[in-house]
């Protein structure tokens, strides 16, 4: 007998507390501690736990419906404004969730055990909502300059945000995998979005092939963990591993390693970082900033959930792996960034090295480390979205230039823009009175608390090396001589282009539709659109505010509900 779907628990908290006393009837299922009867489709749905996801989904669908009824050339700026509005509603929903949850502690799985409703995930929901708002506002002027405006980019942005939110909230490996794919597939398209730039297509293709490869590895890991523990839900895996000691744990460890590889790819941790420089360089610049913020945050949210909630008992096995990844990421990211001549490539390596600090917080496997890592991720999105927004403004039409010369003399031409960029650079370098300093301080403190002095020393050394190239950009901005720009590097393929081929080279045709308009930036000041200016102002203000006051770290500490 099939019963209709009951929408019990509408805006009410599901109460899975009774799960222990529940035995499954033959042919029935266990759902959130409720035992369903055979043939029953009864499931309590706690809608309050998925408000931001619902807002983004409904917003995206309404926008798609609107685009079908509105005239083809709707008002410019309509779609980014709507996207930012949807992001703002989602942000409001997430903030409401934060207060709804209160300080009451441990994570509760809801909706069939597939997601968690806790402050840890709400921090990421807030973060991703802000990234959507900033991403939409900073992409608008870029897309119009490149003749790419339209609704599709914003739909993809909202969809990837949905995936990222599901990853952050995920309560099972399958939900994590699905969120990962929703986010990644949308990001592949966004990377390839600049159809007339060969580099953009290559970035999308490279991201796609390597991303799918890492997803397959991740999925095999999921299958192995499922075999070893009998479930894909974090809570059940954790319970099983607490209650049972597996004598031959090769399958479990293999699965764990593959899951770490898959998520390590998403957060661009060394040695799974090879895609990052090419993809960051080739993608449309504002999308690069969005991608760097959202994919990294969601990937780390997934890593934290899997490693602490599901595999918390296996700390002795995964901490050395993460330790090694952290050291490699810090070292290689910082050193490689120095050698780069392209701003976007340099920022790609810089973002790799920043991931290293979050890994330091993760491998500490403590409350201090987690809140440090959360603080790091939360403050980093303001910095990275802002940095790429500035680069996007300076590049000129068709992304004509992104070499270091483009920023030379910016301090003289546009002191305000240069000042904002300086704040971002100093924050990434970890200079005091910026959020970057406190972020690095907290994760290194967590390592010291666990007695890992060597790791702390390595992290500080890496920060010193990295400071060199951030300061080099800063000095370049304020160097007095805006030298005559050399011959423009026009549509140069990335260093190892042609690695992926179909046996034929993609060539630009002479056809009017597919030709890229390349218009180098003028020597004078570049116009700063209002929306981008607002994003930059808010980001810079937040970066300084989080560096001098303690509100952000208090926020991160309250969100540390995993321990």
């Amino acid at each position: 007998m099939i019963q209709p779907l009951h929408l019990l628990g509408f805006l009410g908290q599901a109460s899975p507390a009774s799960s222990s006393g529940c035995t499954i009837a033959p042919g029935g299922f266990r759902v959130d501690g409720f035992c369903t009867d055979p043939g029953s489709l009864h499931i309590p749905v706690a809608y309050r736990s998925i408000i931001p996801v619902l807002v983004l989904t409904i917003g995206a669908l309404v926008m798609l419906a609107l685009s079908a009824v509105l005239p083809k050339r709707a008002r410019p700026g309509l779609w980014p404004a709507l996207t930012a509005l949807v992001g703002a509603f989602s942000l409001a929903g997430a903030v409401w969730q934060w207060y709804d949850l209160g300080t009451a502690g441990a994570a509760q799985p809801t909706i069939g055990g597939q997601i968690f409703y806790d402050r840890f995930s709400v921090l990421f929901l807030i973060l991703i909502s802000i990234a959507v708002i900033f991403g939409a506002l900073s992409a608008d002027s870029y897309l119009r300059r490149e003749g790419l405006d339209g609704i599709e980019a914003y739909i993809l942005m909202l969809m990837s945000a949905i995936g990222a939110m599901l990853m952050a909230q995920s309560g099972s490996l399958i939900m994590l995998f699905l969120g990962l794919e929703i986010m990644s597939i949308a990001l592949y398209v966004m990377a390839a979005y600049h159809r007339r730039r060969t580099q953009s297509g290559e970035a999308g293709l490279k991201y796609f092939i390597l991303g799918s490869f890492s997803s397959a590895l991740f999925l095999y890991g999921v299958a192995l963990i499922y075999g070893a523990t009998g479930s894909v839900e974090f809570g059940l895996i954790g319970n099983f591993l607490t209650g049972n000691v597996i004598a031959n744990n090769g399958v479990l460890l293999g699965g764990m390693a593959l899951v770490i590889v898959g998520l390590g790819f998403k957060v661009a941790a060394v040695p799974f970082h090879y895609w990052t420089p090419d993809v960051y360089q080739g993608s449309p610049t504002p999308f690069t900033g969005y991608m760097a913020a959202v994919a990294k945050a969601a990937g780390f949210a997934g890593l934290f959930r899997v490693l602490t909630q599901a595999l918390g008992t296996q700390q002795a096995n995964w901490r050395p792996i993460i330790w090694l990844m952290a050291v490699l990421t810090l070292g290689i990211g910082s050193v490689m960034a120095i050698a780069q001549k392209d701003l976007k490539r340099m920022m790609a390596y810089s973002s790799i090295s920043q991931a290293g600090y979050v890994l330091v917080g993760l491998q500490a496997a403590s409350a201090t480390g987690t809140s440090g890592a959360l603080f790091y991720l939360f403050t980093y999105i303001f910095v990275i979205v802002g940095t790429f927004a500035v680069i996007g403004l300076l590049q000129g039409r068709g992304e004509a230039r992104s070499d270091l010369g483009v920023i030379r003399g910016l301090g003289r031409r546009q002191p305000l823009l240069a000042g904002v960029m300086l704040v971002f650079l100093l924050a990434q370098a970890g200079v005091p009175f910026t959020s970057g300093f406190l972020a690095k301080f907290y994760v290194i403190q967590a390592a010291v608390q666990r007695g890992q002095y060597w790791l702390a020393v390595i992290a500080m050394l890496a920060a010193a090396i990295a400071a060199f190239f951030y300061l080099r950009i800063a000095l370049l901005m304020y160097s007095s001589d805006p030298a005559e720009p050399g011959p423009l590097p026009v549509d140069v393929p990335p260093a190892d282009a042609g690695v992926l081929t179909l046996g034929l080279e993609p060539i630009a045709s002479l056809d009017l539709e597919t030709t890229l308009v390349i218009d180098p930036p003028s020597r004078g000041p570049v116009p700063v659109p209002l929306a981008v200016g607002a994003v930059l102002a808010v980001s810079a203000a937040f970066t300084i505010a989080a560096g001098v006051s303690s509100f952000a770290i208090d926020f991160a500490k309250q969100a540390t509900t995993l321990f």
Partner: protein
Amino acid sequence: MNVPSAWYLILAAVLFGIGATGLLVRRNVLVMFMCIELMLNAVNLTFVTFARMLNDVGGQVDVFFVLVVAAAEVVVGLSIIVAMFRRRAAATADDIHGLKG
């Protein structure tokens, strides 16, 4: 006589290994993409085998999601490939038109 479940798992592992190796060896994006499909199929076989061994319906449901994701991935991946390599086709068509004068 029943086949021991480990045989299925080893078969899946071999298939996964072949797919991964192929992805690293081949340079044709379409074939690389097919290798990813091989890997996903290996995962499906592993899930189904574990589901049978554990007498758990969850493993079979997981295969559904792998299938959906694989289908969406194919659509997106192939459309990126087409967008990237169609330019060449367009140029060829132009050349033919040009020769006719």
